[in-house]
């Protein structure tokens, strides 16, 4: 495999460096070497990618992915999750700690990193648990987790209900400068709920989860953030009240970032239809007014990142009564198409859409990559913006198929993914893992 690659005549969109135009991009030994408006000569032995008519983008970064290993390898493994990631144009993912051995120790962090190294497809950054066993009682050893390689700490899937514990988490984390990533849900308000509380939940006779279950916790944590001078990242923001509070907090200088999942800016609660468990997730799909507010927040900078909350589950987890249906959908292989829907609809510029998938998440967590200046990692995603295709869950590289987007028409698709100068995905095929390379 060539160590020098020249991407010729593609539209390079690199929001961090203010680039949006036809460029040649030369990468060598895993780094970006040159980005040139004028055509570059082809170095001897270089692999040439003709990107005419294509977009050449920094590799996408997903701050919120469930890889399910260790413990639920029937749903996903680090390897299959990485395959799904690169197929979706992601060159880096942050792996949530709510595996069936919780990542609350260096041992589990190292296991995930070793599996990722063996997969050799994309960067995997583990997130460590806030509390031991995600029980919300005692702090996990944050120092050990960070030194083992965790880039954030979170009890994702569960909130930290105890306000005092949350306050100390924010305080304690300041010494490591890691973001505390929060799943905001007041369990006393969401108790028994199966979907957003609104007309659809009334019609279906399902117990509703009011928006206040999220907003009240966001408000609490912003108050604690101000007091502790900590660093907070709000995961999967779903409603208008949350973005309003986060917008104000950012204006007043608090160190808060947030992400939105594609399903929350594409679908509203009506997608539950007649009890479709593929439209069940936490937080739930909200009202159309919330979807509108999330879109505005994507545009105005309140939202830092689009993150998928990729949550693989088996068929049987979803083929049950709606109340019993497990939360979550896979997202890595549908994220770009859904994001581009907002571009085609004129909601987002291409530049802003790319920023939300690249520099935005890199900056929020302080991760490498997310841009294409000389010296940056040669993580590159090549997109054909015009190709029309249909989402087919049976073609997913993920081990799971749980998506409400099966059959949806999309325009624009990832055609190649490169990680540190190696091609790991090319027109539908994931490359071999590093061990066999």
């Amino acid at each position, binding site marked *: 495999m060539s160590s020098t690659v020249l991407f010729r005549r593609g539209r390079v969109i690199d929001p961090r460096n203010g680039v949006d135009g036809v460029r040649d991009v030369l990468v060598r030994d895993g780094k970006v070497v040159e980005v040139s408006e004028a055509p570059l000569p082809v170095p001897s032995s270089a692999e040439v990618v003709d990107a005419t008519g294509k977009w050449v983008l920094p590799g996408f970064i997903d701050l919120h992915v469930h890889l399910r290993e260790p413990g639920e390898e029937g749903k996903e493994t680090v390897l299959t999750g990485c395959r799904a990631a690169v197929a979706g144009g992601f060159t880096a993912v942050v792996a949530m700690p709510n595996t069936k051995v919780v990542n609350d120790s260096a041992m589990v962090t190292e296991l995930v990193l070793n599996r990722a190294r063996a997969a050799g497809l994309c960067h995997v950054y583990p997130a460590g648990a806030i509390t031991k066993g995600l029980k919300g009682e005692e702090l996990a050893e944050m120092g050990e987790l960070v030194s083992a390689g965790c880039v954030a700490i979170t009890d994702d899937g569960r909130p930290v209900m105890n306000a005092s514990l949350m306050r100390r988490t924010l305080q304690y984390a300041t010494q490591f400068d890691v973001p505390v990533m929060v799943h905001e849900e007041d369990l006393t308000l969401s108790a028994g709920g199966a979907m957003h509380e609104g007309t659809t939940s009334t019609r279906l*006779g399902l117990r509703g989860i009011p928006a206040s279950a999220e907003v009240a916790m966001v408000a609490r944590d912003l108050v604690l953030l101000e007091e502790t001078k900590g660093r907070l990242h709000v995961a999967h923001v779903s409603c208008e009240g949350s973005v309003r509070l986060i917008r104000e907090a950012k204006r007043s200088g608090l160190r808060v970032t947030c992400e939105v999942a594609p399903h929350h800016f594409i679908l509203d609660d009506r997608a539950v239809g007649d009890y479709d468990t593929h439209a069940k997730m936490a937080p739930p799909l909200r009202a159309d007014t919330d979807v509108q507010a999330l879109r505005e927040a994507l545009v105005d900078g309140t939202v830092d990142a689009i993150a998928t909350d990729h949550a693989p589950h088996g068929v049987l987890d979803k083929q*049950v009564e709606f*109340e019993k249906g497990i939360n979550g959908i896979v997202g890595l292989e549908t994220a770009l198409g859904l994001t581009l829907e907002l571009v085609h609809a004129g909601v987002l510029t291409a530049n802003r859409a790319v920023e939300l998938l690249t520099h935005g998440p890199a900056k929020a967590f302080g991760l490498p990559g997310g841009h294409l200046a000389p010296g940056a990692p040669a993580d590159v995603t090549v997109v054909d913006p015009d190709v029309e295709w249909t989402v087919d869950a049976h073609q997913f590289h993920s081990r799971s198929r749980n998506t409400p987007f099966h059959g949806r028409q999309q325009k624009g698709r990832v055609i190649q993914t490169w990680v540190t100068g190696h091609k790991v995905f090319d027109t539908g095929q994931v490359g071999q893992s590093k061990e066999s390379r």
Partner: protein
Amino acid sequence: MRHLLGIEGWRRDELESLLDRAKAHLPGAPDTTHLLRGKVVANLFFEDSTRTRTSFHMAAKGLGASVLNWTHTGSSVSKGETLLDTARNIEATGPVAIVMRHRSSGAPHLVAKHVKCAVINAGDGTHEHPSQALLDAFTLRQRWGSLDGRTVLIVGDVLHSRVARSNLHCLKALGARVVMCGPPTLMPPGLESLGAEVTHNLDAALPHADAVMCLRIQLERQGQAFLPSTREYARLFGLSAAREERMKADAVVMHPGPINRGVELAPAVADGPRSVILEQVSNGVAVRRAILEVCAA
């Protein structure tokens, strides 16, 4: 073959045709045991029920069907069998219809997607109870002929009531005006967009109603902060003898049962001349025969 998963989605003419057929199943009507002779109707009850289960049982018998009675107690559900596995096993016995009750809203929809026979919802969670709404409408049509322009006041725990949802769809489709009344904690959001008017003032609404349907207050709702007490509920929303006097002269009182006497309904009113509660029960069999006929015969 047609499913009856809810009243929602049934057109007025379809509902009226079913209700008209039910007249041919009233006591004294010609024998109808040929309609499902040699066929099996499966009663699949995941939740306790006396009135609805026996009513469907009698309805199926009256059409000549054999009835497979399956209840959750003592079944493989306690061994962890999934709903779909149970339903598929029941289906394998060859019924023309599965009549099912389940504590989860939408459970009949799930089953209907995976079996070939008709699925009749006999009450799912807090979603719908279509046969109850049909027998309520039948009872009112017996009194009034038509529901056009009539006002039905539904009082109580609408949030948790499948009877209220089915009645809302059914009564609206048949031309009635529906007013929902209860404490704000027990009124789900968006009722207006489903066609109901909402009030929290029973005394103001009562004199305009042609029928008052009292819903059962589930006693376990106390302690969940939906209500301070059944005592306060009875004071604010109970249909007492004093309130009954302010009803229209010919207005009727309904209840889907079982009644908490003295809470939502005073005994004297439940047993008084306005009450059509026992007519509701006896009409149940005729209406359910019509349902089985329309869906499965």
